């Protein structure tokens, strides 16, 4: 959940230039237009680009922040792996660019709340021509849910009792309790369908450059030079003719440094990328040979509160800090404006169902603008003036350094004493994994996302008891109750209403303090069009939507 900002670190170390470590200077209030806070921005961002009219005949060079490491979906989590896996493979269910979930390789039905039946379509074949059978699907799901396979996704199967094939095209998942979140997971990496016989034959080599994979997707791997490039070619027999690829060949390259990526895009050596907080955003926007498109956000930037034993245990102190943060300045400094003002710990790009319910709720939440008078009053009420907090960060990743700096300014302004504890990027990652690394740190910045388009996918990790990112054992019975209700509710709008209630509490209880909702940013050669501009590239088909303008 750390996301790509480590790329900046790589670049800085490589260049021997620790310039990136200084954080970016904040613009003064006078420099800022404040456009990022407008409420209508939500509706203005579309998750799609104009569809192509022609085939694209040259190879497309696509950049990810580092080279893909594995094609094994159960160990795919970060941007490069997810971007590539979604190009090669189909999941049981399919994520659309707007986050909705539809049928994929299979159709899902719930005959009873604790029984999920997957009916496998009859068209999809693996690249070797073999049809997809229930044996493949059972194998894939068992790999994804078993710790023995080294799966990163075992926790999402915690309500699953059994997975079994009832005939060659039907798989039944029996649940211990109703679980409507499982659909979301099956539309993503844990639901990726690959051939059992192939995976067993390759054994430990499955997913590696020498073992590759065997999927049904629109592209198949042709040549993988580890750490350098992965070339994939269009699958001429792709089962879904509405999404037949219009680009014949895609070469994925890992490019870490912003400067290298920028010159690659400007010279046409790179044709496209989903950029994460790129420092040269404005320069690329001005380049006539490129198209920069902003889409709805799916990740949220926030301060993780990992210690509520200190002064941050008082919700008034958290609210005071939140009210004092100058998010407009932060958005300008880190994203050059390509990020939105948050209202709670979610972003509109995460509404994969129940959109109208979520949107209605969102519209009555106030944007998190600065309110110093209220902040100062709250901190006095909490008797916290002069108390100390420690903010963890890493100077090696400039956006995180800037986040910490803006929050420090806010906290100091309302009378708190702030220590910044800066660690190496490696140790920063450890903050997410080890309690000893978090010791002495009260909060730290993150850019975080859930597995699929549902605010609950993130909330679940933050506030549920034992949640993977619930570091301070935050426990709010109402939130827990509503999340459990949401998980067990079949009706999408009703489910959304429970999640929206949790979102409302998130905005006032602040188990984490939201900072901003960064746009999904797609940068392509001007002639290349069609790629969706949403988080779908992390879970659903996107590459086969591209073609020539």
């Amino acid at each position, binding site marked *: 959940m750390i996301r790509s900002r480590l790329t900046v670190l790589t670049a800085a170390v490589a260049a021997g230039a620790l310039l990136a470590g200084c954080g970016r200077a904040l613009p003064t209030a006078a420099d800022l237009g404040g456009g990022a806070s407008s409420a209508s921005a939500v509706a203005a961002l579309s998750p799609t680009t104009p569809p192509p009219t022609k085939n694209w005949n040259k190879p497309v060079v696509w950049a990810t922040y580092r080279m893909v490491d594995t094609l094994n979906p159960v160990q795919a989590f970060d941007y490069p792996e997810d971007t590539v896996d979604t190009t090669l493979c189909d999941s049981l269910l399919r994520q659309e660019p707007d986050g909705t979930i539809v049928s994929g390789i299979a159709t899902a039905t719930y005959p009873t709340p604790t029984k999920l039946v997957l009916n496998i379509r009859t068209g999809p074949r693996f690249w070797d021509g073999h049809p997809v059978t229930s044996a493949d699907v059972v194998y894939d799901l068992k790999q994804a849910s078993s710790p023995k396979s080294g799966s990163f996704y075992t926790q999402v199967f915690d309500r699953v009792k059994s997975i079994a094939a009832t005939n060659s095209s039907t798989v039944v998942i029996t649940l211990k309790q109703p679980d409507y979140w499982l659909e979301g997971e099956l539309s993503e990496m844990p639901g990726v369908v690959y051939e059992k016989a192939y995976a067993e034959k390759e054994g430990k080599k499955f997913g590696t450059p020498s073992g590759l994979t065997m999927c049904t997707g629109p592209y198949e791997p042709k040549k993988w030079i580890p750490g350098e490039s992965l070339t994939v070619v269009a699958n001429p027999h792709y089962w879904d003719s509405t999404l037949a690829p219009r680009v014949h060949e895609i070469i994925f390259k890992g490019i870490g440094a912003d400067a290298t990526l920028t*010159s690659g895009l400007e010279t046409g050596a790179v044709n496209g990328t989903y950029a994460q907080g790129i420092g040269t955003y404005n320069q690329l926007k001005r380049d006539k040979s490129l198209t920069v498109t902003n889409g709805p956000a799916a990740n949220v930037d926030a301060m993780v509160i990992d210690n509520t034993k200190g002064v941050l245990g008082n919700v008034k102190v958290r609210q005071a800090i939140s009210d004092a943060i100058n998010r407009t300045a932060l958005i300008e400094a880190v994203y050059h404006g390509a990020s939105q003002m948050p209202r709670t710990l979610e972003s509109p790009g995460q509404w994969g169902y129940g959109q109208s319910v979520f949107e209605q709720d969102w519209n009555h939440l106030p944007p998190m603008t600065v309110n110093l008078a209220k902040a100062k009053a709250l901190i006095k009420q909490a008797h916290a003036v002069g108390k100390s907090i420690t903010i963890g960060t890493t100077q090696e990743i400039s956006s995180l350094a800037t986040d910490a700096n803006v929050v420090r300014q806010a906290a100091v302004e309302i009378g708190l004493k702030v220590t910044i504890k800066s660690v190496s990027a490696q140790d920063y990652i450890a903050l*997410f994994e080890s309690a000893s690394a978090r010791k002495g740190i009260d909060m730290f910045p993150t850019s975080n996302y859930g597995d699929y388009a549902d605010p609950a996918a993130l909330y679940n990790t933050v506030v549920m008891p034992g949640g993977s990112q619930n570091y301070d054992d935050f426990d709010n019975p109402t939130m827990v109750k509503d999340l459990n209700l949401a998980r067990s509710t079949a009706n999408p709008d009703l489910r959304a209403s429970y999640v929206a209630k949790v979102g409302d509490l998130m905005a006032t209880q602040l188990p984490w303090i939201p900072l901003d909702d960064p746009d999904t940013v797609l940068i392509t050669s001007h002639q290349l069009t069609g790629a969706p501009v949403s988080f779908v590239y992390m879970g659903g088909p996107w590459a086969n939507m591209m073609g020539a303008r």
Partner: protein
Amino acid sequence: MLSSPLTKFILRRVGLLILALIVSSFVIFISLNLAPGDPLSALSGGRSLSKATIAALNREYHLNDPVLVRYWDYVKGVVLHFNLGTSIQFREPVSTLISQRIGSTAELVAYAAVLIIVFGVGAGIVGGLRRGVLDNSIIAVSTILAAVPSFVAAIVLIAIFAVDLHWLPALGNGSGFGGTIQHLTLPAIALAASAFAVVTRVTRVTVRSELSLEHVQTAVSRGIPWPLVVRRHVLRNASIPITTVVGITVTSLFALCAVVEQAFNLNGIGAALIQAALEKDFGVVQGISLVLVGAFVIANAVVDLLYAFLDPRVAIGARAS
């Protein structure tokens, strides 16, 4: 035969190589283990994993064994099975990863070496032989280049020749001879720039000091044609210090190329080393470091052999004075 100076020299150098590899492998292994961070966090990208998964992965990669046990396993693997271990990040044998990348680095270093030898030594000789405007400009240019770190050179070269003028590609390795030359020209210049300056200056000073020696002056006064004097008396004698400095700078390019490879997105071992060190991919760091140590020792041996070839008075293996 066994007692011939060449055999003795080779045996001694092989011994040195083995010793260097053992010592450096141990130091690298231990320091990687002492440094903070965890290969699993690099593997998972920071995703919080379940305890059972962590346990399974630790078992698979032997991450819970004591350091010395792991080092011993590593040495056994290398010595008995010629197995450099497996990359945690790429799940591939380290030897495969290195062999796929070493060619790219070797091409880059070779190209840069040619530039250094042709232009660096060339400019040094010209400057040494001829005082005047040309010499002064060579000094000026080499002073500037000496001060430019290769990552700055890379940024400037890309901005001018790739982005603005579109003459040469900004990144990638290229394929075929022509493509490789085209793609590696900017990286090789970036890599050679500061080394070029050193070589030029040392060559220039050496040539200059040879010129002022008595035997050269005598040769000139005897009426021996100038080109012959330069070839036989000046360059011949200047060749040993020049070889030394070229040898040292070219070997150091192996270590410097990491920065340039990253800037131009080349698929070399230098860039891989940086990436692996960040990701705590022990096997890869270890493997590439050993390759670099080996390259250093071998390059030094070649330079020493060259001494004997260039100047018969120098015995094989002896340091030229």
